[in-house]
């Protein structure tokens, strides 16, 4: 299969994720969309790796997965903390950190 297909799919996934982050307000969905973007990146990495013929891209993909896992842990932890304190699960409401 041609490399273009992979890249197009990856770009689509990335765009969907980015759009989700921009338009959705629930932190859980935003976290999901972030995962989507990361995996779009992974897909591109793996595809290019196969095209070039070495393993470096795949190693990168593995590292991204580890980072993604960590990020999910932190994100979910934040969400649980927000929930425990009975704050609204809405990123637009949680804006005390404005300058």
């Amino acid at each position, binding site marked *: 299969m041609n490399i273009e297909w992979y890249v197009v799919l990856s770009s689509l996934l990335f765009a969907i994720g980015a759009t989700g982050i921009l338009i959705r307000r629930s932190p859980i969905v935003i976290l999901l969309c972030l995962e989507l973007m990361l995996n779009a990146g992974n897909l591109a990495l793996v595809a290019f790796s196969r095209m070039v013929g070495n393993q470096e891209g795949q190693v990168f993909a593995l590292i991204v997965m580890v980072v993604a896992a960590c990020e999910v842990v932190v994100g979910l932890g934040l969400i649980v903390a927000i929930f425990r304190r009975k704050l609204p699960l809405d990123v637009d409401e949680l804006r005390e950190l*404005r300058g």
Partner: protein
Amino acid sequence: MSATSWTWLVLLFPLAGSILISLGFRSIPARVAGVIGTGAIALAFACAVAALVNLLGQEPDARHHASSLWDYASAAGLDIKLGIYVDQLSAFMMLVVTGVSTLIHLYSFGYMRSDEGYHRFFSYLNFFVFSMLLLVLAGNFVLLTVGWAFVGFASYALISFWYRRTTATEAGMKAFVINVVGDIGLVLAAFLIFREIGSFDYGTVFAKAPEVFQSGEWTVTAICLLLLVGAFAKSAQIPFHTWLPDAMEGPTPVSSLIHAATMVTAGVYLIARTHVLFYLAPTAADIAAFGGLATLLVAGTIALAQTDLKRVIAYSTMSQIGYMIMGVSIGAYSAGLFHLMTHAFFKALLFMAAGSIISAMANRQDIDRMSGFWKAMRFTSLMLLVGGLALAAFPLTSGFFSKDSILAYAEARGGMYAWMAIGGYVGALLTALYTFRLIFRVLPGRPCEEAQHLIDSGELYHGPPINPATEEEEDTDVGFPGAHHHIAEQSWPMAVAMALLGFGALFAGLIQVPGVDNVLFGFLEPAFLDSPLAEIHPSVGAEWRGLAIGAAISLIGIFAAWVLWVSRPQLPALFRERLRPVYLLCLNKWYFDEAIDFLVVRPALAIGRFANSTFERIVVDGLITGTEDTVGGAGRLVRVVQSGFVRSYALLLLAGFAGLALYFLIVSS
């Protein structure tokens, strides 16, 4: 034990006494503190005598020893030791300081008895003696500066001893500030000496100085002038003298010990110690001599117009130190030191007698109110008379021989210095006049109210406690003079101290009678052999001629005082009327306070105010506010972006990366 070991002990006892009393003041009873304080100084005196005996057992040329306990700094050509230098000069000073201090401690033991700060007083007094001994025993210029500054602090602490009296604290600050000016002079002189000679050590400096410096070279003149700033500030010579009369705010034993007998003579000691340098800088030595001469005349005239008992004696102290400064500056080293010793005796005695009278007056010091104390307090009056006779150089008293030995030397050196001797004789006339003005107003006549009370009831007059300087009523709580006063007639320690000093004031001059004996000069002179000026000796005939002139002047002065203040009391008022400008000049202390205020204090304040109002506000504040505004403005600009909307951050991030990607695309294609 060697002389230096004894000398270390002399330093140790007062320091130990001071520390012991100040640390143990809660548990040591007041009387015990007094005993410890007095005993420490008495032991120091005993050790000083032992050191002297040890020195006397050696050849006159070998009577100088240096000893050091440890090195402060020894690197890069710098060699500063905690070292002392014992020679005839420092042994002499050590004896005078510890001897007079012992008696004054004994006097304070009775005089300060009812004061709430009894421990504090003895702790300070012991600390002062330690500092003064450090000053005279130091073996290098660094340790000298340490002692010099310690003495300044002790003086400050003791002038402000009654710390709730505003006048006293202000006087203390004034003394401290002027003394610090002197300290700066001394420190700068030490720096210059180190730059030129490369050592702080007395032995090295004085041995090398004649090789390093040409006579009259500007560096050695500068060194000597800077030393003079220190000496004049400490010894209250014009124009640094204004602190001394104000220092009379302190307790009377303090005036007696620090501001008459010991500390104020530190300048004389300094000039005598550095006589090698002064010999190489004749200009500086002449300036010093003229300073001394000016002070002895000016202070003499001021003393004629003052009415505060202690201030009159303070001006007389300035005047007498003027003689000493003049003496050691023109080369009469031994004579200057001789006068230092006799002055310590009779001036300490005068202050003690004055303290006793002030006690009887319930702390009032105005001589206009005093009269008839001869009938009320016979012993004190006798002591005042003895001190006054010695001060006025009455024939055969101690002051008679010491003052005239300075003037005889000046005459023997000839030229300009002979004129200085004439100035000195004029000063002697003034001295006799103001001394006996004091005595004739205080002792004879009908007893004043306070004296009458003492005669009638045998008890001291008790008025409401007042500040003698301002006549304001005050407390007798801690920080003020105590509620009760003590006079020599009712307190044996005071009487013993005064009697011993009185003996010294009368007979101490007999150790150095021209043509008869040569005890003191014979001892001191080997220390000054390196200055050719010390080889000038007035002939015995010239000395006796000088003594005869001195005796005549003294008797004329006393007689004139008797005419003016006893037989024709209307005359002084007439003089005041006729010579009003002169009287006002003397009454207002030649306007020195005002002149210094105008020339130094006001400009300094004006510069300060300018710096505060203009420089500080515009330049310093401008710099700070400018920086703050720049940073703050930038912050406000960037703040807008920090909206708190996570999604807008995400949008910005995406847009940024998109922009970057676009940029690289364009660049790469």
